[in-house]
């Protein structure tokens, strides 16, 4: 998966946030709508779309969508 598709899938987990706000550099935990429930949706999305299970720490240690994408790519290679 390319970063652009990842960003689109990432944005789809949000209901009330403007899609234009999502870029590779978006600090997603600073978004108003971000919550622990969104985090679960992201984990499920990554499982469905990338066949990788990310951990809580992967999300905690990522600031931007690009950071998380890098983690996913790294896990896919394992």
């Amino acid at each position: 998966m390319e970063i652009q598709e990842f960003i689109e899938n990432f944005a789809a987990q949000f209901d009330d946030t403007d899609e234009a706000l999502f870029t590779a550099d978006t600090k997603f935990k600073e978004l108003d709508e971000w919550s622990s429930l969104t985090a679960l949706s992201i984990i499920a999305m990554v499982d469905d779309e990338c066949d990788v299970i990310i951990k809580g720490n992967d999300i905690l240690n990522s600031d931007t969508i690009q950071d998380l994408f890098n983690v996913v790519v790294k896990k896919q290679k394992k």
Partner: protein
Amino acid sequence: MSQLTINNVRIAGMSACVPATVEDNRTLPIYKDESEALKVIASTGIERHHKVDDGVTASDLSVKAVEGLLQQMGWEPQDVDCFAYVCTSRDYIAPQTACIMQDRLKLRSDCCVFDLPFGCSGWVYGMSIVASLMSHGTFKRAILVAAETNTRNRNPRDTAVRPLFGDAATATALELDPELARPMNFMYGVDGAGFDAVWAPYGGMRNPVTYESLEEKEVSPGSFRRGVDMIVNGMDVFGFAIKQPPRSIKELIATFNIDVETVDLLLLHQANKFIDEKIRKAIKIPAEKTPYCLEEYGNVTSASIPLTMVSRCREQLAGDMKHCIACGFGVGLAWASMEFYAGGVTIPEVITY
């Protein structure tokens, strides 16, 4: 792969006891308003849970569940050859709670009793252990308790767990019956590297209780916990729960050549609706064959599969043989899946403590 088949043992009866006090998630003081509460309810499916009053233990609920079951079945306490107590909310650090239960339930003094300190996988594990002992042929009747007081071992000010977990006790009566029994099949799984996804760090031998471990600390904004309280790392549990249970059930189906079309009931550990629906869809079992009781009782860990059977499948299980798949998964991390048949099961209505 560790797999196990047990013959000649059937489920003869089941019961459940829940505390009378109900805590409604809509009105919990941990949310800023009702819309926040409704959001959590919408994604977890958990609307409320039952909660023990101060001083009531899992064993108190269990005594009521077992007594109600024995009475309905017409079994005397002295008929019971084996008694297993699946629970992590033990009465005392020592002795095993099952020993005290022998006296409280008036079981025979030569009854084989033991604790099994499992969490969410506990009913399936317990079934395999007790049924396996019975399959040797001399234990004719056994009782398996799966009980937990999750509201006691978790902090009520921990916003991540308060809306999810409840208290309940269940009892399952097993009978050696080569004529009626059909094989029970089991698969197991464990990932010890994930032990800190759900754990209580203080109070054991590794980290004994200290004054500091009894102090409440703010672990995230507005959420409090002590060192001796259970920690549930929601994100890691979620990642585990959407991966391993479907894989385990698929292994069970493949190993024992199960025709999924013939399955009448998929009995999942009631973690939350989001997780369980992902598992159900991965196994491709229709919604009407997958009963839930989490909306009413929350996640009651080891008691959740038998509580679902007692509260939602009472009439179904009293009738003809039903083909069932069950999967328990959680703390450990440990999981276990099981194929079995159940019919003509004596089930009293859910008992209130």
